[in-house]
């Protein structure tokens, strides 16, 4: 029920590619890829349908263009056209308190210009998750109220979870 409603609502977005997944083997029902600029719109739809935000995961796909090894196979089909350079991926996990429906909202941006809009105005809980993602990957969430380091020291200028990070 919930799954149908939300997948239809999200599919209405211009850049969205919605893929149904097998919950038993993957752990989520819907995998939705959107362009960075449509992220707030997608979050707003999820908010209106009563979803809560569970987590934000950054993934660094360094070296993907040179050797397409690490790319997750089934994503290739439903991704918006991949940027022609290595990219960061950010995955937003949403779930619903009343009806079980896990939505993984994905977006990609090139590693050289890692900037996407924030959703912390829609979900205040996303504030810390985004700060953490900024800590670890250096992804800039534009219009975020405060992107100072959350888990790293106040003066940290490194992003340890980038695959090319050297201490």
């Amino acid at each position: 029920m919930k799954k149908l409603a939300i997948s239809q609502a999200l599919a209405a977005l211009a850049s969205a590619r919605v893929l149904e997944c097998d919950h038993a083997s993957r752990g989520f029902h819907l995998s939705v890829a959107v362009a960075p600029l449509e992220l707030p719109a997608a979050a707003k739809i999820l908010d209106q349908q009563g979803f809560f935000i569970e987590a934000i995961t950054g993934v660094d796909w360094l070296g993907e263009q040179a050797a397409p090894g690490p790319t997750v196979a089934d994503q290739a089909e439903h991704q918006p056209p991949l940027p022609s350079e290595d990219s960061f991926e950010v995955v937003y996990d949403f779930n619903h308190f009343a009806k079980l429906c896990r939505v993984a909202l994905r977006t990609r941006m090139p590693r050289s210009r890692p900037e996407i809009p924030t959703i912390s105005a829609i979900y205040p809980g996303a504030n810390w998750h985004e700060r953490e993602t900024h800590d670890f990957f250096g992804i800039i969430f534009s219009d975020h109220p405060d992107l100072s380091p959350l888990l790293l020291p106040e003066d940290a200028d490194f992003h340890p979870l980038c695959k090319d990070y050297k201490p």
Partner: protein
Amino acid sequence: MVTANAHLPIVHFSSLDKLLNLGRANSLWPLTFGLACCAIEMMATGVARFDLDRFGMGVFRPAPKQSDVMIVAGTISKKMAPGIRTLYEQMPHPKWVIALGNCAIAGGPFVFAGQYGIVEGADKIMPVDIYIPGCPPRPEALVEGLLLLEEKLTGSRRWPRVNPE
């Protein structure tokens, strides 16, 4: 480890010093300062079954200015290290430090090539008197560590030593 000796007074009153040390050894007040997992075992040592009060050491003080011994119970992150150093400096002399658990000894399981977040051992930032290994150490180990500290102060052991079977 040299701390306790480093701040001894220039003039010695041998018998009086012994008496003072006896007093100190029998009322070691630890600083309430939990960092991570080991702090839970430190709590467990303080209450019901293990009962540190038997040794006069159960008076956990929340303020560094009232305490004699600092038990570093957990991983020291780089962000926390200046704070720990400040706490150590705020404690009045004479003072002692116990490194509880592998993290406080040498970084424990969180040491790997390219680690960016932790200080590998409490002795990198301050002098340590007693090292208690374990991840986390059992409460019996902490009791034994405190008895060793007592021994270091008075030169003799108040309680019989238990031999491992």
